[in-house]
């Protein structure tokens, strides 16, 4: 990797960090960096570039720490954002204004799609506690995965219950529409729900 390009990346991320207003979540990112996934490839990519370059005069404010603390959605939204810019339609899933378009990092297109709408009060499924309910609001993933989830009944607005999360980064067992499903961590962390306090029976 050429140093100049690497620095560009880092600067791009840095710009992002300043504009995005998501609450950072140490727990989530910790998990993120532990488990390599399709979806976190881009983040990894950046981390790697940074790591290989960190001895060669890194931009001062862009510490590795900051990069890791970056909550996942902002990166995604910006991915989405850049593709939206080129199509010049603006779906509400992206929380950034069009004026920030040029600051989107040019991440490789990952073929990710989104359904539902994101907002910053949502919790990823893998962070719900055992036995808790939520309403599905937003899912991100490859088209096939989204289609399969929809077929299994995880449509936006559906109530979902986390029955159990397997230890050691294992899958999440959920109950949805009367059936029980196991969703791998990589998938569960991209299913965002609005956590419900009342435990009504679905």
């Amino acid at each position, binding site marked *: 990797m050429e140093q100049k390009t690497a620095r560009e990346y880092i600067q791009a991320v840095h710009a992002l960090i300043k504009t995005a207003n998501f609450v950072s979540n140490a727990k989530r990112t910790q998990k993120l960096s532990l488990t390599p996934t399709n979806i976190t490839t881009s983040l990894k990519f950046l981390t790697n570039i940074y790591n290989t370059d960190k001895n060669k005069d890194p931009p001062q404010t862009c510490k590795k720490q900051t990069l890791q603390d970056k909550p996942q959605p902002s990166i995604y939204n910006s991915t989405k954002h850049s593709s939206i810019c080129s199509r010049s339609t603006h779906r509400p899933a992206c929380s950034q204004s069009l004026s920030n378009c040029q600051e989107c990092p040019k991440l490789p297109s990952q073929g990710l799609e989104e359904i539902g709408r994101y907002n910053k009060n949502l919790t990823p499924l893998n962070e719900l506690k055992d036995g808790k309910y939520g309403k599905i609001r937003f899912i991100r993933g490859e088209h096939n*995965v989204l289609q399969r989830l929809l077929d299994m009944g995880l449509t936006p607005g559906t109530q979902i219950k986390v029955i*159990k999360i*397997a230890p050691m980064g294992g*899958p999440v067992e959920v109950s949805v*529409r009367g059936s029980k499903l196991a969703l791998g961590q990589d*998938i569960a962390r991209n299913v965002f729900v609005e956590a419900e306090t009342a435990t009504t*029976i679905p």
Partner: protein
Amino acid sequence: MSPQSDPSNPDKGRDAKNAPSFTFALAGNANVGKSVIFNQLTGSSQIIGNWPGKTVDRAEGTLTFEGHEIKIIDLPGIYSFSTFSMEERVSRDYIALEKPDAVINMVDASILERNLFFTIQLIELQAPLVLCLNQVDVAKSKGMIIDKDKLQNALGVPVVFATAIRGEGIYEVIQEALKVTDRKQKPPTIQYRPIIEEKIQQLQHLIQKEALDLQYPSRWLAIKLLEGDNELTQFIADKSKTIADASKKIAAELQHSCQEPCFSLIASERYAIASQITASALQQSEIWNTFSDKLEWVTTHKIWGYVTSVSVIVGLLLWTFFVGNALSSSITHALNFIYPVDPALSAELPLLTILINGLWGGFSAGLTLIIPFVIPFYLLLAVIEDSGILTRVAFMMDSAMHKIGLHGKALIPIILGYGCSVPAIQACKIMETRRERLLAAFAITFAPCSARTLILFGMVGLFVGVQWALLLYVIDVAVILVLGRVAMKAVPGKSTGLIMELSNFKMPSPQVVLKQTWIRTKSIIYVVFPIYLVGSILIQVAYALNVLSPLSDALAPLTVWWLGLPAFVGVLLILGTIRKEFVLIGAVAILGTTNLLAGFTPVQLVILALVAMLYLPCVSTIAILGKEFGWKVAATISAANIGSALLIGGIMFRILSLIIPV
């Protein structure tokens, strides 16, 4: 005469004979009981088990019902008609294009809503439909009461209640199916909410106006095009540019006005309908903590879950050994009483002696070393399969499986591989991508199939000690992990995540378990046993005539020098590629006794078993690998097998010789 040859005239059969013949298809979600009902109707022996995805290709059977000859097709279990998987495409094309006279939609009454999502799609496909509400017993035990009339009215499709496992409702299903074969009553149109409905109709009119000769119902096609179904979009693009462009435009409009991708909108809409129908027809009373809930708690507990998972895997082996061992020794006693195998070839009449010895040797080896282990093994495997625990093991082991580029579901075919690699490799179809199927199949070629288990227990367990047999298993698992990881790096692509339905726990049904065990044992007795006998005679003859020594000599550097085994083992290993059991049977034939210590030291038995376990999949496995993945893959996997067997065998020999002087 098959009615499906002329789909335009389903009534054709009527005129030809008094009792026409029909084709009925069984369709529905995975794990709802299609194969149970199929077996009952046709007397076939499709695999039944409590995990989703057993039926991978469509199965056919016939039934004679009130004078009608009825062909029954068992379609693979699917959740939808999007064409991401082979199974979905097979089922969709079958129903849409081959137009069976009736489609029996098997529905799991205890998961009504999710099942109706698929029913709605069948209705859209204008299939002549009967809804068979199966597993009513399970639904009842979960406190669900379903109102048949309400369901019938809401869907506009005849509904039959059934408990397939007890044969209840099966007669009625066929009766109802016969009634819909005339296709007089079209399934009703299911209305979407106005904003979507308008777009569907707009596109549907266009399709109708173009009056193309399309096999698919126009409304269904319109919906699929809006969903952006790849295959159908392509199909239409080839036929009519007008429709292709229009559908793109209409879909974009819909997406814009709802601010949501069309495929999500339509799925949500179908589920909204399913949910509404369920709410009107289903009464749920609260039931707390059933027995199965408690079991679920244990099997997915953060400690007990792993304990159960490991006990399933190890327990199956231990059970096989201890029960098998007990059976084996009592049979050996009985046999020795009848006719002790005589190692000495008498000088007179050598041919006859060879024949008798070969025949008896093969027979007694089969009876004492194979059958006693196979039966208890298949019995417990059937119990495990039918109990529903497999999906829980897959759940618990998901993160471990990620280490070899797979997800938890892959453990299901691998555990089935304990039985036989061939169906296990076919079961790899439950994995989503070719890469994952390939990695899982690769792991299966190392998994201890029943033949390997026999070799381990028959050679090492019986004559050296069960702890050595278990040690070999541990080595095997280690090999799978290490090579699985290598394979993961070698095969390009990325892993997909786990999305799996968790099956309900239930008491395994004795009929299903016994039948399953019998089907598998039967194939050993009828098909494989004769091969043992013939093989055993041939080995003895060939050995007596000394035609095998060139072979043994050629392999001697490997077998004798590198692995420290007797030279004749070379022949056994070659024969073992036909069926792995031949390593054991052949050894008995050549030694002329079932007491293997007569010809091997304990260390040699351990090494031979280890090499036999790893060295090459049997021909049937290589054949299925070639069929599913191509010959290059089959050859590569075989080479990996041989390489690892020789490497580990040689190293083990040297280590063991140090520990236990030969």
